[in-house]
């Protein structure tokens, strides 16, 4: 929600920014302010928001990063009791996850054996990225179809719109339970397909189940954003294209797609960020078993074993998601401008 609000604000400010863009570098806007007190008032006005963000976002993040360099409570062999931990541990928490090095009883290090949480790190990263790529692709394609359907004027359109939006309105926990019942070996999915898969208890069926449930739930979100984009395309553009002799497919690829691209890009970035931190769906649907442990599930599993090591893991996950998201934004932006140029020419 915070992200959404933030972006909206940015979008709202954009026209103003655009106008000032040439003079932006030399801090010109501030120097050019008409009244001398204006900048100070502006800072005062945003100060509470900045302060609040620093407290509720900055403080926990920085504390987690700090904790990730400390030891977790360890067992004192003589007394059989845990010490309080919190000693300086350097980068050991990070090497534990990144290089999959686990402690040995003799006090040394060894590569983490199967069944230790440490050995699941790269697997969980792969699973998370895999889910993101597959689910987002499916959601975008199906969402586009939905949006085009909802965009057309026909009898019963309101009903179709509501029907498409229902999954998005259902809480994820409920969705997960719903699909769990349907994917039961005796459930409706097997009955309809005439199969006998134990969906949630073997590797690929479990992963497909997650992707299906996620796609079902969030396609409406993408469809909605695309629909908003579609409604901004003036009807004359299509008329002009039709007069020029463009067929339906040509109109879709040469008019609809380039013009809806900005909205589509935003939708894809949001969905990718959401999927990268997916927790509730796999946690409830499969419990993270059968190769469905995402990075977030792993963080929470580690949390009860040692909060400082979990801090390191969540920091790594944070950086990873940040890098992917940043790359995605850059990539889509480039395409976006390219597309705009093409559409104009």
């Amino acid at each position, binding site marked *: 929600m915070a992200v959404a609000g933030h972006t909206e604000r940015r979008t709202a400010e954009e026209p103003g920014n655009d106008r000032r863009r040439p003079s932006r570098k030399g801090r010109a806007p501030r120097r050019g302010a008409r009244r001398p007190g204006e900048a100070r008032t502006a800072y*005062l*006005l945003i*100060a*509470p*928001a900045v*302060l*609040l963000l620093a*407290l*509720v976002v900055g*403080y926990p993040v920085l504390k987690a990063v700090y904790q990730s360099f400390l030891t*977790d*409570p*360890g*067992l004192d062999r003589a007394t*059989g*009791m*845990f010490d309080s931990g919190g000693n300086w541990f350097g980068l050991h928490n990070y090497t*534990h996850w990144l290089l999959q090095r*686990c*402690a*040995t*009883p003799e*006090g040394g290090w*060894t590569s*983490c*054996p*199967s*069944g*230790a*949480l*440490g050995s699941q790190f790269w697997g969980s990263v792969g699973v998370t990225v895999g889910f993101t790529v597959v689910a987002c692709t499916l959601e975008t394609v199906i969402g586009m179809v939905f949006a085009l359907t909802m965009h057309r004027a026909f009898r019963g359109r309101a009903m179709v719109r509501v029907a498409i939006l229902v999954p998005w309105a259902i809480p994820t926990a409920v969705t997960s339970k719903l699909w769990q019942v349907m994917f*039961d*070996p*005796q459930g409706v999915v097997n009955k309809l397909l005439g199969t*006998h898969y*134990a969906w*949630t*208890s*073997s*590797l690929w069926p479990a992963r497909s189940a997650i992707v299906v449930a996620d796609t079902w739930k969030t396609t409406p979100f993408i469809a909605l954003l695309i629909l908003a984009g579609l409604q901004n395309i003036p009807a004359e553009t299509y008329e002009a294209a039709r007069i020029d002799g463009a067929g339906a497919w040509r109109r879709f690829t040469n008019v609809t797609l380039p013009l809806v691209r900005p909205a589509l890009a935003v939708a894809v970035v949001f969905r990718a960020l959401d999927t990268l931190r997916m927790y509730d769906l796999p946690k409830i649907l499969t*419990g993270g*078993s*059968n190769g469905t442990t995402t990075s977030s599930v792993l963080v929470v599993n580690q949390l*009860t*074993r*040692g909060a400082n*090591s979990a801090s390191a893991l969540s920091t790594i996950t944070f950086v990873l998601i940040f890098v992917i998201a940043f790359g995605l934004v850059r990539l889509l932006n480039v395409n976006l401008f390219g597309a705009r140029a093409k559409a104009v020419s």
Partner: protein
Amino acid sequence: MRARKVAAVAGALGATLVLAGCGADGDSGGSTRGADGRGPITFVTGKDNSGVLPFIADEWNRAHPDEKVTIKQQSDQADQQLADLEQHFQAKDPGYDVVTVDVVWTAEFAARGWIVPLTGRHTLDTRRLLPATVKSATYNGTLYAAPYGSDGGLLYYRTDMVDSAPTTWKELLGNCEGRTAEGTITGDRPACYAGQFAKYEGLTVNAAEAINATGGKIVGSDGRTATVDSPESAAGLDFLVKGFKDGYIPKEALGFQETQTVNAFRSGQLMFMRNWPYAVAILDGKDSKVAGKYGVAPLPGPAGHGASTLGGHNLGISAYSEHQATALDFLRFIESDTVQRNNLTVGTLAPVLTSMYSDPKLVKKFTYLPDLLKSIETAVPRPITPFYPGVTEAIETNTYAALQGRTTTAQALKDMQAAIKSATAGG
């Protein structure tokens, strides 16, 4: 104006956060005051699916009007109960006086100093209790909790399909031959056998039972040296691995927790089932297709009866409680005949008092009691270690991989051994 108001709110919020941060780091003190303290207490326990809590609260409150108990029910999922307890203990919450602790969490809670040892002023008489349950509440030679309810695995079988319960695995498979569906639950024939094989704590219970039955040991007598990689363990685990390979365990069972197992047996889809005694109440219930058509027996093994894994719960006194003297009285009250009898008759919970298992009236009503006693007395506890979460993860993950055929039994045990070693080393 508006901005100033927001700023004030932000400031107040920040101050609260900072205070909260300090509070967590500060020392609670007051443990001496708490040890002799008397007053109202809160009893934190999992959701009361068996309906025994109202009786406990009423009985206690009638006798102790000045030290009333408030019962806080958590979720009915064990991992959520654990998370709730961990959060409150980490925050040193004095509002949790008496807590229900699963037998496998007791060591960790004790080692973290969250529950007080029952020694000195807090001594609890354990002579009337089942020794196995007392052992499960003991860490490092010290009693840390009061056994509340015990549990042992039992074999449920269909009396309309076999005359008597099998005592060995071979007999069990012989009974199934030609009468059961193979590999999957389909159509009219039931599958042969199922226990709890989803990847969760129940899998550790079932794997440990198989491994212990053939003489394998998960950890050594010190409770932490991994000893699971042995030919004996392999023979035990193979009973389950072969079950999925040869089809006498249906593949659906890879998603079975207790509830799914009972449901399958109840609707006539299983010939044999491994489950806890609580299933009896459900199998005698209204929608059961097997009511009056099933029997209960000790678990089978390779040669004669096998070994159950010990289940159950203990009650601990929070180290942060300010009314520990009252809490201790409450623990003694929980071990009383009245409470234990009510737990059995109302909730079919296995009592921890030895005398209950030979009480003629009770045995007449609950015919499985002698078998349950045998199951509990011969039960093997799961590893008693403060690193239990890591140990059970090691057992679950590698057993599951072997059951799915993604790895061999030998490799699974080798990995299990290494992972237990790593878990008990703290990382």
